[in-house]
C-alpha cells in the first residue's frame, strides 16, 4: 500500500468535496458566492473536481460593489469560461440606484456593508436556497463558531444562539419556506492550507496576489491602492511601492502588503513568517471589535 494515510491537504479537500456534494444533493437551488479572492477561487476548483465530468450543478454569484480591481473582473470572466460555469452578477450600484441601499459618505466610505442588501436581494430574486461561501473558521473570531451548514432565517439573519448542532459528517439542510442556508465547505482550512493547496494544484491566480508596482497611499497604517473608488485626503500622498494583495476584497477595504513575493513559494514563505493575520489589513473588520459578528447577524457572507 503506497500511501494509505491522507495528507492534511488531501483530507481537507476530501471534506470540502463531500460538503459540496451534500449541497448539490440536499438543496434545490444552490449557488456559489464568488468574489474573485483566493478562497472563492479554491472553492470554484473544488466544485469543478467534485462533479467532473459533469458541469458544476449550480451558478456562481458575484456581488459586485462596482469598486473592484479590474484584474478581479478579468480573472473572473476567464475562470467562468474555463470551468464552463454560469455567472450571475448582483450589482450594489443597482441597489443604490433603486434606493434599496444608501451610499456611505466620507473618506472611509465603503460599499462593503451595502453588499448585504444586494446579496439578500439576489438570493431572493433567483430563489436560491443555499449559498456556498469560502469563509474559513480561522479568519475571524465570529467565524470560529460557524457551522458548515449555517441556518439563516427568512430575513437572512444568523442567530449564533440557535444554530443546529453538527455531528460527525451528518449535515441537516432541511428548512422551512423562506429560510435558507449559507454553506462553508472550506471551514476547516487555514490561510496556509489555501496557499499550499493552490501551490499543490497549480491553480492560476489574479496577478494582484503577486508583487507589482502600484500607486498607493497610507491611511491609519494600512496601504491602499490610489484609485478613484477611494477618496483621498490632501495630506495622503501618493507613492509608488512594490505591493501585493494578501486578501482581495473591493478596492475600498483591501489593504495591500509591501512585498516582493512573485511566486507561490515566496508567498507561502512570507505568510509563514508573518506576524499579522490576513484580515489585519481589512478595513471592514476594524470598524469595531465585533464588526464581523454584527454583519453576520444582518446576513453578510
Amino acid at each position, binding site marked *: *500500500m503506497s500511501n494509505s*494515510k491522507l495528507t*492534511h491537504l488531501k483530507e481537507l479537500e476530501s471534506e470540502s468535496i463531500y460538503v459540496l456534494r451534500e449541497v448539490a444533493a440536499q438543496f434545490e437551488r444552490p449557488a456559489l458566492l464568488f468574489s474573485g479572492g483566493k478562497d472563492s477561487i479554491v472553492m470554484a476548483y473544488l466544485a469543478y473536481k467534485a462533479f*467532473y465530468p459533469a458541469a458544476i450543478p449550480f451558478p456562481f454569484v458575484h456581488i459586485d460593489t462596482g469598486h473592484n480591481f479590474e484584474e478581479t473582473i478579468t480573472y473572473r470572466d476567464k475562470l467562468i469560461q474555463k470551468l464552463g460555469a454560469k455567472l450571475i452578477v448582483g450589482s450594489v450600484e443597482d441597489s443604490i440606484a433603486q434606493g434599496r441601499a444608501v451610499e456611505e459618505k466620507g473618506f472611509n466610505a465603503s460599499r462593503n456593508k451595502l453588499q448585504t442588501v444586494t446579496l439578500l436581494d439576489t438570493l431572493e430574486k433567483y430563489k436560491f436556497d443555499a449559498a456556498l461561501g469560502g469563509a474559513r473558521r*480561522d479568519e475571524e473570531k465570529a467565524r*470560529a463558531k460557524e457551522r458548515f451548514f449555517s441556518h439563516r432565517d427568512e430575513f437572512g439573519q444568523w442567530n449564533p444562539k440557535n444554530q443546529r448542532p453538527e455531528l460527525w459528517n451528518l449535515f441537516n439542510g432541511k428548512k422551512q419556506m423562506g429560510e435558507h442556508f449559507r454553506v462553508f465547505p472550506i471551514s*476547516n482550512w487555514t490561510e496556509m492550507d489555501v496557499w499550499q493547496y493552490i501551490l499543490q494544484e497549480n491553480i492560476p491566480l489574479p496577478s494582484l496576489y503577486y508583487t507589482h508596482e502600484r500607486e498607493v497611499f497610507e491611511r491609519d497604517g494600512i496601504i491602499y491602492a490610489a484609485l478613484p473608488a477611494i477618496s483621498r485626503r490632501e495630506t495622503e500622498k501618493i507613492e509608488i511601492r512594490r505591493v501585493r494583495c494578501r486578501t482581495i476584497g473591493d478596492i475600498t477595504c483591501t489593504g495591500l502588503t509591501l512585498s516582493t513575493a512573485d511566486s507561490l513559494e515566496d508567498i507561502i514563505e512570507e505568510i509563514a*513568517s508573518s506576524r499579522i493575520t490576513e484580515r*489585519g489589513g481589512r478595513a471592514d473588520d476594524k470598524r469595531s471589535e465585533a464588526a464581523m459578528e454584527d454583519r453576520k447577524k444582518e446576513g453578510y457572507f
Partner: protein
Amino acid sequence: MSEPKTQGYLDMELLRFSTAGSVDDGKSTLIGRLLYDSKSIFEDQLQAVKEASKRLSGSDEVNLALLTDGLRAEREQGITIDVAYRYFATPKRKFIIADTPGHIEYTRNMVTGASNADVAIILIDARNGIIEQSKRHSYVASLLQIPYVIVAINKMDLVDYSEAVFNKIKEEYNKIDKKLNLKNIIFVPMSALDGDNVVEKSKNMPWYNGPTLLELLESLPVRKNENELPARFSVQYVIRPYSDEFHDYRGYAGRISGGVLRVGDAITVLPSKTKSRIVAIDEGQKSLSEAFTPQSVTIRLADNIDISRGDLLVKTTETQPMVNANISALICWLNHRPLNVGGKYIIRHGTDEIRGIIKEVHYKVNINTLENIKDDKTIKMNDIAHVSMKTMKPLKYDSYSQNSVTGSLVIIDEYTFETVGAGMIVADIEDMSFNI
C-alpha cells in the same frame, strides 16, 4: 524569532482533538498557551485581546481566555455558548481543536465537539481532583469512543508540583475508568499558566519522564485502523454529464467511510443486494487504482444498475453491514423540546434520510454518577439514553464501535427541522460495550 518553514510540508497529517473543561480548570489558558507557543497567535490578535482585557478588567494583564471567547454575547456574559474551532500547526502536524465549554447544560456541545475527535483532552485542576464535571467529560469521551484520552492534570504549580498528588488523581481516575472502559488514557502533569509540560518539559517536575502535551499531540496515531475496516461507501450523488464526450458516463460520488476500494473489487449494492465490479475510481480528472478512507471519489461499475443516493456499496467478500429497520442506539438529546416517545422523527444516517419512530426508552444515564436511571424516562436536553427505534425502511449500518460513520445518526424534528438528537448505534440491547 525563528519561524517554522511551512513551505516544505505539503504532506502533514491532520489531527483533530477536543478540549473540555471550564474556565476554572485553565482550559482557555491551555489553548492560549498551545497557540502562543506554536506561534499561531498574530500580533493584531494579541493587540485586540490586550485592548479587550484592559476594557473589561481595567488591568494591563493579558487575559488569554479572550483569545478563545469569540462572540460579543459571550464576552459580555463571561461564558462560552458553543463549540469553537481553533487551528494551529507545528512542523510535524496540523491541528484542529474543537473547544467546548464545560457547563452542565452543555453536554450537547461536548458531544458535538468530540464527534470527530481523534483525541480528547480532559482538564483536571490538581487542587480539586476529580469532580463531577471530569466524570461528565470522561463519559462523553467514552460514549463517543474517542481513541485517546489525555487527562491533563493542571495547576501543578499550586500543589507544589507534588508527584503524590498526581498519583492520587491518577489512581482515582483509573477507578472511574473501570466503569467507562476508555480505550487509551494518558496522564500528563502540567501548569498551563507557566507552560510546564505543555510544549516544553517541566523543570519543576523531574519525576515525570513522559512526553509533554504537544509531544503527545504530535505523535499519537491519527484515526488508527480505518483502512483495515470492511469497506463502506455511501452514495451521495450520481454523476451523469449527459454530454457528447461523456455520453454514457455514470459515476457514483461519495466518501469512503472505512476500508480501501480498488479497481476490480467485487461489490454488493445495499439494500438491493445487486452485485457488480468496480471498473474505475475517479477523482476529478484523475483515475486511481485504489482509494482510502476518508477520500471523496467517484466510482464507476461494470454494470448499469439502478443506484441512487442513500445506497451503500460494500465489498462482496468482506463482513456485511446490518440491514435492519429495528435500531438500538444510545442517544444524546440536543433540543429544548423533550423526546416524544412514539413520535415520528426524520433519521439522517449516512446519505440516507428516513422517517422513524422512537419506540422505547430503556434507560437514561446519570452522567454525574455514571449510573443508569430506569424509573425516569423523560428525555430532555443534554440527557443521554438508550432507545429503540423503528425506521420506515431498513438502515444499512455497523455498530458505532465498529465504524463511527456507518454507526452514527442524527434525529431531526419533523416540524421544526432542527437537529434534536445524536445517536450511536449499538448492535443490540445487550451490547456490553456501552453498558455501565
